[in-house]
C-alpha cells in the first residue's frame, strides 16, 4: 500500500510540471553555424528564430536547444546524442548538410527521437526504412527532374553535359539526373567532376564547348557557381540552357552577378511568390528583420520547426506520440501541403513539389510548374 502511495505521488510529481506548462516543449536544433557552409546555415538559424516567435503567438513556448555541427558528420552525431540523452528533447530539427543528416538519421531509431530533416537532399536519408526520420524537402532526384521537365516544355534539347562538385550532394544529384535524362531520351556528352573551390575551370569548359551540348547541368555550392558562369562567358560556352541544381545557383550573391547569372534556370524548394499560405508574409518579415533575402533553406527550417513544435506540444513532449503525430498529420503552410508518406523507395518523405526559377533582369522569377508561374521563361539562353 505504502509503495503504491509513494509510486502514485512520484508519478503525479513527474507529471505536474508537464501539466502546469502544457504548451512548453523542448526541441533540439542541429545546424551548421560555423565552418564553410555557415552562410547557408545562417538562413536556417533565422528561419527557426522566426518560427519560435510565431509559435509563441500561438501559445506554444519552445525551449530551443541549439547545436553547431560545423558541417562535420561526427560533430553532428555527438550533438544528436547530447540532445537525445542529456537534454531530453521531444524531437530534433536538422542537420543542414546531406552528409550530417545522413549520419544522424542512422541514430534516430536507436534513441527513438523523432528527427525532422528540413533541407538535406541526399536520397538515402529517407530510404532506409527508419521509423523516426522524417524529411520536409524534396530529395536530390527532384532537383534535376523538375529542371529537365521545365526545359522539355520549352524546346527539344537532345544532348546534356554535367559539371559538378565531387561532394555528396553533387554526386548523388548527378547520378539521379542521369537516370532521368536516359528516361526522357537526353544523350549525355560530358561528365566532369571538379574539386570544390578550384580557381580555373576554363579547360573543362572549353572541352564542353567543343562538344556543343544543348543543356549544361551544374551542381555547385556557393561561389563555384559564380566562377563557373564567369568562365563560361569568357570561353563563350552558349548552350540552349544552363541548369543549376539548387544551392549555389539560388543565392543572393549569385543573383547579384547580373552579367553572368541572367537567364540561368535553377531548381528550388521554395520561392516567395508561390501561393502557399504565408509565403509572401514570411519573405517580408524575414527581409525586414535580417536585411537579407531568405533562401529556400530559411523557409524549410521555419516550416520544419513549426511542424515539430506543434506536434510535440500536442503530444505533451512524448517522443513516441510525437512520432505517430508526424506520421499521421498533415499541414498547409509556407511550404504548401506537407504530409509524410511512403512512396517509391522513400519512407516518411514529404512529396514536396519543387519549383524552377529563372533569373530575369536581376530577379528570381518562378517559371515552372505553370500554375505558380510569375513570368514566362526565356529560352534559348543568350549572354547579356
Amino acid at each position, binding site marked *: 500500500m505504502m509503495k503504491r502511495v509513494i509510486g502514485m505521488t512520484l508519478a503525479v510529481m513527474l507529471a505536474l510540471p508537464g501539466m502546469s506548462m502544457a504548451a512548453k516543449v523542448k526541441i533540439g536544433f542541429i545546424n551548421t553555424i*560555423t*565552418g*564553410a557552409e*555557415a*552562410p547557408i546555415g545562417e538562413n536556417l538559424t533565422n528561419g527557426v528564430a522566426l518560427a519560435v516567435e510565431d509559435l509563441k503567438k500561438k501559445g506554444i513556448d519552445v525551449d530551443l536547444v541549439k547545436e553547431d555541427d560545423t558541417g562535420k558528420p561526427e560533430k553532428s552525431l555527438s550533438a544528436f546524442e547530447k540532445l537525445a540523452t542529456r537534454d531530453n528533447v521531444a524531437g530534433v530539427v536538422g542537420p543542414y548538410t546531406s552528409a550530417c543528416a545522413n549520419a544522424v538519421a542512422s541514430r534516430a531509431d536507436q534513441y527513438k527521437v523523432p528527427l525532422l530533416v528540413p533541407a538535406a537532399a541526399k536520397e538515402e536519408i529517407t530510404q532506409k526504412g527508419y521509423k523516426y526520420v522524417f524529411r520536409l524537402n524534396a530529395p536530390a532526384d527532384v532537383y534535376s527532374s523538375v529542371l529537365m521537365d521545365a526545359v522539355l516544355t520549352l524546346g527539344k534539347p537532345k544532348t546534356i553535359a554535367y559539371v559538378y562538385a*565531387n561532394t555528396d550532394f553533387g554526386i548523388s544529384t548527378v547520378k539521379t539526373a542521369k537516370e532521368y535524362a536516359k528516361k526522357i531520351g537526353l544523350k549525355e556528352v560530358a561528365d*566532369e*567532376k*571538379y*574539386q570544390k*573551390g*578550384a*580557381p*580555373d*575551370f*576554363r*579547360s*573543362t569548359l*572549353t*572541352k564542353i564547348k*567543343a562538344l556543343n551540348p544543348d543543356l549544361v547541368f551544374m551542381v555547385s555550392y*556557393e*561561389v563555384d557557381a*559564380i*566562377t563557373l*558562369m*564567369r*568562365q563560361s*562567358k*569568357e*570561353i*563563350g560556352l552558349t548552350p540552349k540552357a544552363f541548369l543549376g541544381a539548387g544551392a549555389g545557383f539560388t543565392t543572393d*550573391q549569385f543573383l*547579384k*552577378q547580373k*552579367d*553572368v547569372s541572367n537567364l540561368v534556370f535553377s531548381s528550388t524548394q521554395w520561392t516567395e511568390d508561390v501561393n502557399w499560405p504565408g509565403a509572401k508574409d514570411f519573405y517580408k518579415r524575414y527581409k525586414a528583420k535580417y536585411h537579407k533575402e531568405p533562401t529556400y533553406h530559411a523557409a524549410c527550417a521555419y516550416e520544419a520547426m513549426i511542424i515539430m513544435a506543434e506536434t510535440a506540444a500536442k503530444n505533451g513532449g512524448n517522443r513516441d506520440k510525437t512520432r505517430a503525430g508526424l506520421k499521421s498529420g498533415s499541414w498547409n503552410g509556407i511550404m504548401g501541403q506537407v504530409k509524410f508518406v511512403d512512396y517509391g523507395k522513400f519512407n516518411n518523405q514529404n512529396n514536396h513539389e519543387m519549383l524552377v526559377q529563372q533569373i530575369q533582369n536581376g530577379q528570381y522569377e518562378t517559371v515552372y510548374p505553370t500554375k505558380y508561374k510569375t513570368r514566362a521563361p526565356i529560352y534559348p539562353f543568350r549572354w547579356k
Partner: protein
Amino acid sequence: MTLSVFLQSLISGILIGGVYALIGIGLTIIFGVMRVINFAHGDIMMVGMYLTFYLFTLFHVDPFVSIVITIPLMFLFGAFLQKVFINRIIGTLPQNQILLTIGLGLIISNSAMLAFTSDYKILTTSYSSGSFKLGEISISQPLTASFIITVVITAILYWFLMKTDTGQAIRATAQDREAAQLMGINVSRMSMLAFGIGAAMAGTAGALISPTYYIFPQVGSAFTLKAFVITVLGGMGSIVGATLGGIIIGIVESVGAVAISSDWKDVLVFAIFLLVLLVKPSGLLGRSRM
C-alpha cells in the same frame, strides 16, 4: 581533343601559371635567404586579397592599380613578421620553424575570420569575365593583365637581385650566411628585406587573382600547398626555377583536365612532382646543397 581545345587550355594554363609563379617566387626567396619554409605564405596572400577587396569596395581602386599600395604595405607586414617572430628561430631546429610559421598562419586566418566573418567576398569588376578572341580561342582579360604584371615584377626583381648592391648582399646571405656576415653584410637586415619581398609577392599574387576568384579567411591553405609544390619542383631558392615550376603546374592542371578529366588533374600534378624529385632531387633548377 582538337587543336583549338588544346591551344585554349595551354594558354589558360600558362596565364594562371604566371600567378602561381608569383606565389612560388615569394616562398623561394624566403627559403633561399633564411632557410625557413614559410607555411603562413598562403595566409599572407589572403591578407593581400582582403586588402585589394577593401581598396576596391571602399575607395574604388582598381585591383590591378591597387598593387601600387598593396606591395609596400605587404612588404612592411612581412618585415614586421620577420623582425618580431621569424628572426628568433633562424638557425634553430626545423620543426620549431615549421611550428612557428604554421602557428602564425592560423593566427592570421582566424583573426581574418573574426574581423571579416567567414562569408565569401566576391570582387566584381567590369572585366571579371571579359575576354579577347584569337580565332577560335578566347583569352581572359584579367588573367592576361595579371600575367603581364607578373612578368614585369619578376623581371624587376631579377634585375634587383642581380645588379644592385643590396641584391648582391641578399644573394650573398643566401649563399653563405656566416661568410656574408664576415664580409660586413648586415644579414639580419637582409633577412628582413627578403621576408618583406616574399610577403609583397604573395600579397601581389592575392591582388592579381582577386578579380577572378573569391576571398574567404581560409583561402590560403590551398595556395600554401601549391606554392610549396612549385618551389620544390623548381628547386628551392631558385627564382627562375619557381617561375618555371608555376607555369608547369598551371599547364599540367589545365591540359590534364581536358586530356583526362578534371578530377584527375591533381593526381597528374603530384605524379609529375614525384617524378622530378626522383630524377633530380634538388628540383629542376636547384643546386644540391650540403
